[in-house]
Structure formats: structure tokens, C-alpha cells
């Protein structure tokens, strides 16, 4: 039951893009076409889950026992950068077709703040999912990261679908491009607010 609440909450109620404002740059940047949005969401899904597991272990088994939590920001970003590089190399060797689909998005992910944001949140913040506030354990953190990434993909795909239609419409000159995209995102965020009391 608790896992269900984590999933619903991360995907719909506290959607990572539309209510926590993480990963806005790729959200606006690569959402022109549905196919690229799909590729980006896939790559993000993969990296967020992996990065959260690795940084969770790093925090609890290296940084805390040694008393060097102040290195958190530096070590997390380095681990994420190395991880992205490694995923790229492994993917290139083992699954060329997947690499073809996700390849160009992987280097961009290092500077996607969703990855670092989720990694830092799960080790520093207390969450309340139905019960009392507590730090997440590894299983919960993994589910939370995966659900957050799915929420990211959901927002991205809906948004890309809307923008594909938008490009065929006659938008006033001053609003063309990013401004109308931002206003669309605002209305989408308004729609997602409807989920507020769901979980």
C-alpha cells in the first residue's frame, strides 16, 4: 500500500516538472517532437533510477560512516557524471539499437537537475507517504526515483503532444516559441493541481 502511495504521489501529485520545477531545461528544449521527447524520457528514467541507488549507497555507506557529508554535492555530481559516461559506454557495446535511440540525450543528462535533485532529496529529506515522516529505505528510494522518472516522462510526452499540435496553429507573433510553451506548461500544471488531494 505504501508503495502505491509513493508511486501515485511521485507521478501525479508532486509531479517533478509541473510542481517541483526540476528538469525544466530539457522539458522546454527537446519537447518539440513526440519521438525525441520519448527518447529523452527513456534515458532520464534509466539514469535517475541508477543514480539514486548508487548515491544512496554512497551516502549511507561511505559519506556518513566517514563523517564527510559536506562532500555530498561534489561527490554526487561526480558520481552522476561518471555513471552517465559509463551507461553510454555499456549501452554502445551491448545494445546498439537502444544507444541509437537514447545516445544523443545521455550527455545532456548530467546537467539535468532532476537527477541530482532526486538523489539529494532522498538522502536528506523526510517523506510522509500515508504514515509518519521518515527517511526512505533503499527499496522505497528506488521506487520513488523510478516513479519520479515516470512522472517526468508523462509530463514530457503530454507536453510534446500539445506542442506538436501548437506548431500547426496560428500563434500571435509575440507569443511564438518559448512564451506560448511556458503558458501551455502553466495550464498543464493547473490541470495537475487537480490531483492535489489524491495521495
Amino acid at each position, binding site marked *: 500500500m505504501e508503495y502505491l502511495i509513493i508511486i501515485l504521489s511521485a507521478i501525479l501529485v508532486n509531479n517533478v516538472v*509541473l510542481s517541483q520545477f526540476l528538469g525544466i531545461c530539457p522539458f522546454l528544449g527537446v519537447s518539440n517532437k513526440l519521438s525525441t521527447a520519448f527518447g529523452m524520457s527513456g534515458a532520464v528514467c534509466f539514469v535517475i533510477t541508477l543514480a539514486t541507488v548508487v548515491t544512496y549507497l554512497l551516502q549511507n555507506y561511505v559519506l556518513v560512516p566517514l563523517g564527510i557529508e559536506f562532500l555530498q554535492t*561534489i561527490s554526487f555530481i561526480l558520481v552522476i557524471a561518471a555513471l552517465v559516461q559509463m551507461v553510454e559506454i555499456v549501452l554502445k557495446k551491448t545494445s546498439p539499437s537502444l544507444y541509437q535511440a537514447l545516445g544523443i540525450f545521455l550527455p545532456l543528462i548530467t*546537467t539535468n*537537475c532532476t537527477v*541530482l535533485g532526486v538523489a*539529494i532529496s532522498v538522502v536528506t529529506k523526510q517523506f510522509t507517504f500515508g504514515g509518519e515522516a521518515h527517511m526512505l529505505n533503499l527499496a522505497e528510494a528506488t521506487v520513488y526515483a523510478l516513479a519520479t522518472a515516470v512522472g517526468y516522462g508523462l509530463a514530457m510526452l503530454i507536453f510534446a503532444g500539445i506542442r506538436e499540435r501548437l506548431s500547426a496553429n496560428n500563434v500571435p507573433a509575440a507569443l511564438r516559441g518559448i512564451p506560448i*510553451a511556458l*503558458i501551455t506548461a502553466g495550464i498543464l500544471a493547473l490541470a495537475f493541481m487537480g490531483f492535489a488531494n489524491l495521495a
Partner: protein
Amino acid sequence: MNKFSIFTKGLIKENPTFVLLLGMCPTLATTTSALNGMSMGLATLFVLVLSNMAISAVAPYVPDKVRIPAYIVVIATFVTVLEFMMKAFTPAVYDTLGLFIPLIVVNCIVLGRAEAFASKNPVLDSALDGLGIGLGFTLSLTVLGLVRELLGSLSAFGLKIIPGDGILAFVLAPGAFIILGYLMVVFNKIFKK
């Protein structure tokens, strides 16, 4: 380019928010009020100036292949310094901005200036560039925060201007997107011909 124009270009001509469209996450997330927007802008300014200076000083000695990780380490160091200073001196501000302080590391403005400007220019010019871009960022965040605060809670910089309740949606997530969209329209109308 003379020193003065290096400094002023960040304010309007290369304004990070309205022209370069960089650093959107903190822009949208922390501008719930004019003061919050301004604090986030100043925090970024601090990191931007120091990392620009440090990177322009070490850039000639960093091998080309590892330059991005090297820059990220430099930036992350200054962000950690900032984090501890804010925790010690302004704990209330630190609590409101929360996660977005460590996330300055992945703010594309900082890495963007390091790569595009600081790595190729002398230390003083890089400091001025960081100062200009940082002030431009602070300015846009303050304006966005001010508009959202005015509409959302009918106050400015924490002072109540009109009695009564505002439109809550403008302080919440949807307002951030919509107001930034319309501010961009206004900015383009005035400054872009």
C-alpha cells in the same frame, strides 16, 4: 569589447532568463515572492563570480579532455562554500530555497559562462562577466517574484499593498509558468526589434 560592455551585456542584451533561457528551474521554483527571487539570484551571483574567476585562472593548465569535469568540481566547491555560509548566517533563507542551493551546481548559467567566457578570458574580465550575468539573473528573478507576489498575495517584498487575498494560483506552480511566459512577451516587445 571594453570592460563596461562586458559588465552590462548580461543585464539586457544577454539576459540569462529572458534571452538565453538558461537556469529555468530555479527561476520558476524560487520566485514565489520578490525577496525569495532576489536571494536566489544573489546566491547564484556569488557562485558565478567566484567560479568564473577561478576557472579563468586555471583554464590554461587544464587538459582539454577533462575540462568539463574539472569545471564542475570548481563550481561544486563554491556551491558547498555557499551552502555552509547560508546555513550559518541566513538559515531562514536557506530553508526557503532548500534543494535549489545545491542545485546551483547543475545550473546551466554557471557552467555555460565557464565554458563560453571564463575559459577564454582573463580573470578580471571573467569576474565582470559573472557579475553582469549574475545581476541580470537577479534582476529577472526579482521582477518575476514581484509580479507573482503582487498577484498572488497582493504584497510586494513582504509588505501588504492591497488588503485582501490574492489569486493563490500565481504563487503556486501554474502561475510561475504563465507569468514567466507573459513577462517574456513584454521583454521581447520592448527590447527586441
